[in-house]
Structure formats: C-alpha cells, structure tokens
C-alpha cells in the first residue's frame, strides 16, 4: 500500500503539487488523471523517488521513502517497476538484454536462470520470439510490452506507468490496459497509472485520482465517475461527445 500525505513539490518558486493526500491499494489499478500541467507527472516522479518532496510524506507499506538508509533505498528501488511514457528501452540492447538488465544488476542468478525468467515474463506479455530484436525493430505496442516485461521481471510490489497508452492505436491501448490490470491482479501489485486515456479510466480505473492545478480535486472509482457532480471532473472526463452520451445513457438507465 502506498500512502501519500500532504505532498508538496515546486520548482524554482513555482508550486506544482499543493498538499496531495491519497492512498493506493495492492491488487488495485489506480489512475491519476488531470489536464496537462496539472502536476500528474511530477506526482508520479515524486512517488518513484525521482523528485524529493518539499513537504509531506510518501510511505510504502509503512516505510517513509525519505527516511530510508542507503541500503533500504536500494532495496526499495528493487521493489519498484516503472513503465515510462516512451518505454525508455535501452536502444543498444536487444529485447532480451533489456528485460534481463535488472536481473543482471541486482541478482546473483546464473545466466540460464535469468533467461528462464526473461522468457517467462516475455511470454506473460505475449511477446515470445522477439528476444533478439532491437527496440527500433519493434512497434510502439511491442515496445510498451517489453517495458512492462522489464518492469515486472524483478517481481515488483509497486508498478508505476506514465501514460502507457500514449501513441498507441485504440485496440493496442486496450490490450496494454488489460495486461496491466491482469498483472496487477495476478501478483497483487500496487499499480499507479498516469493517463489521459478515458478508455483506461472506464475500463481499468479501480481508483481514480483527479488532479487540478496541483491539488487533488476528486477521487473515486470508474463507476463514481458516471455519478459525480464534481464540475471539474465532468468537464474533463466528458469533454468528448461520445463520453457525454455514454454518461447520459448510464444516468437514464439508473433513473
């Protein structure tokens, strides 16, 4: 479980996060949504420790990340899996090497054992027979799947994804969403996804945190999104006519 308490962060005098508090549960897919510039990426980067909070705390199963010793921090890092927006695969390494990299760095396993684990996670993300391809030889969706495979290869307790669907066609985006949700459920990972994709909100949003101007403006589930009267959420989520109609249909059905 990740507990965020009164998180503040700014850059050069500009406040980006203004006292965010929330909780992310294991086995649940939590989504952070909000307009561009609302502080989503800074929030996510603060969660993974790339930005140190100015004030407030983030605790991982009761352990506050800013109070870690060097050794504890190293241990905590190995419990984290991260899927970056652009996949962030190492260009010069093959798919197999990319996925094997954390194992090589942090385990003392033999090559055969590591290869077995790599093949297992690649199979889990439906990407067999691509071991020796370079990232440049893969489609965007395949790169995302390699990034997910690399993120879960160490059996993480916490999985973070920064806009995992950006640049993907709707069908591939759904496949990636379902894959993340399945993995979250299967391994009881605490998953936090930063997204703009309203399909993801509806499909896999077991918890949704809506940020506006660096503050948490709303939180709930994908079902709550239909019912909410929060104007900011309604404006943001139902900005497309299609979603407006879906919401109207849902509300009419409820009446």
């Amino acid at each position, binding site marked *: 479980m990740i507990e965020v308490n009164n998180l503040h962060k700014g850059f050069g005098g500009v406040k980006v996060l203004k006292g965010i508090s929330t909780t992310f549960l294991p086995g649940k897919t939590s989504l952070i949504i909000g307009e561009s510039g609302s502080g989503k990426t800074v929030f996510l*980067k603060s969660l*993974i*420790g*790339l930005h140190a909070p100015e004030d407030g705390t983030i605790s991982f199963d009761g352990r506050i990340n800013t109070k870690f010793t060097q050794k504890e*921090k*190293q241990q*905590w*890092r*190995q419990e*984290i899996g*991260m899927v*970056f*927006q*652009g996949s*962030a*695969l*190492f*260009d010069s390494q093959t798919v197999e090497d990319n996925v094997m*990299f*954390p194992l*090589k*760095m*942090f385990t003392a396993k033999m090559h055969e054992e590591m290869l077995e684990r790599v093949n297992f996670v690649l199979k889990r993300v439906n990407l067999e027979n691509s071991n020796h391809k370079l990232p440049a030889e893969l489609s965007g969706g395949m790169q995302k799947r390699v990034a997910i495979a690399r993120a879960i290869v160490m059996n993480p307790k916490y999985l973070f994804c920064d806009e995992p669907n950006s640049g993907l066609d709707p069908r591939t985006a759904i496949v990636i969403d379902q894959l993340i949700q399945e993995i979250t459920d299967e391994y009881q990972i605490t998953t936090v996804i930063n997204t703009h994709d309203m399909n993801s909100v509806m499909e896999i949003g077991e918890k949704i945190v809506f940020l506006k101007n660096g503050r948490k403006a709303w939180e709930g589930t994908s079902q709550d999104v239909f019912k909410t009267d929060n104007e900011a959420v309604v404006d943001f989520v139902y900005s497309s006519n299609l979603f407006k109609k879906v919401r109207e249909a849902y509300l009419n059905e409820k009446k």
Partner: protein
Amino acid sequence: MNYLEHTGKYFIMLGRVFKKPQRTKIFYEFFIKEIEDLGLKSLGIIMFISFFIGGVIALQTALNLDNPFIPKSLIGFAAKRSIILEFAPTFCSIILAGKVGSYITSSIGTMRVTEQIDALEVMGINALNQLVLPKVLATVLFYPFLISLGMFLGIFGGWLTGVLSGLFSGTDYIEGIQTDFNPFLLSYAIIKTVIFAFLIATVPSYHGYYVKGGSIAVGKASTQAVVWTTILIVITNYFLTQMLLT
C-alpha cells in the same frame, strides 16, 4: 547559469562518477563496449590524419629550409619534435573531441530525453557511474596507444613524403629523428594525452547528462560540448606546456 555554477556542477558530477561500480561484470561489459566505440572506431581517422599531417609537416619544413648550410637531417628532427610535442597529443585530441565528444553528448543526451537515464535511476542504478566511468577509463587507458600510433604514423608519413618527393633522403630524415632524442618528450606527450582524454570523456558527458528538452537541445548540447572540450584542451595544453617544459 553562470560559469561558476557549471564548474561546480561538473565537479559534483565527477564525485558521483568516481564510485565503486555496482556490478563489476556489467561494468566490464560497458567498458569493453566503450573501448570499441570510443577507441577502436577512432583508429581509422587518427591513422589517416596522422599520416598525411606528418607528410605535410615534413614537406613544409623541407620547403622552408632551402639554405644549403642547414643540414637536411634537421627536417626529420623538426618533424619529430612537432609531431611528438604538439601534433599527436594536442591536434589529435582536438579531432577526437569533435568526433568522440559529439558522440558522447548525443548518446547520453538522447538517453536523458528518452527517459532511459530515469529508468536506470528508478532501478536504483547510479547512472553517472554506469554510463560515464567506463567512458573515462576507456579514453584514459586507450588514447595513449592511439596517440602513440599517431606519432609513429606521422613520423612515417614525413619519411615517405621525403622519399617520394625527392626533397630529402630517407637516411637524412632518419638521422634527424635519432638526433637529440629525449625520452621525457614522450612522457610529456602521454601525460598531456591522458589529461585531454579525461576532458574528452567528462565534459561531453556533463553536457549530455544535464541536457533538457528534446532532439534540438541534444544537438545544441553536442555543439557546446565540442566547443568547450576544445577550449579546455587548448587552455590545459598551454598550462601543461609551461609546467612540464619550462
């Protein structure tokens, strides 16, 4: 950001670079790759340029020493001195600053803007140590060989020019090379090369690591890296010459 801030940030970066590698085996793999990318792949250009510049130095010296009272062996002597003292260590290092420096900045800069460095840091890896230290060791250990090869080929190019053009004889040239040979000059050249190699690896790494923005920013950083590395090589060369030879 002012120069003082950059200098401070550069030294802070060095402090993070020179740490014990987290995994020796992976570090060794990276080091071997850097030897290939930064060293072996520069062999061709250094050999080519050294050979022809050595020829031109000998040719220019021969054409300007037309007084019959000056012995022809002086051509070999002057070519040897110019090549060992300045051409091979300084000129070749400036060429390497252009070729290797831009490569280092663009590769690290691209890793920065595509979040590959963030990915390393999220995994708990000291990205500077992982990416920069192998480069520093590869250049510092390999460039003395590269520059020594440049010296040899430059002197050989001078000899071949004389033989082919008929401006001086090979015997006179070899006599000049052997005249007043001072082994310290070789040490001086190697000391300079090691320091220049350090600059060639670290200054472009600094520009690449701290780049902000996208591909245009990476391009600008590469240019800046080459310019600053060249400037630092030239300034360092002046001070080293004064310290070691006067």
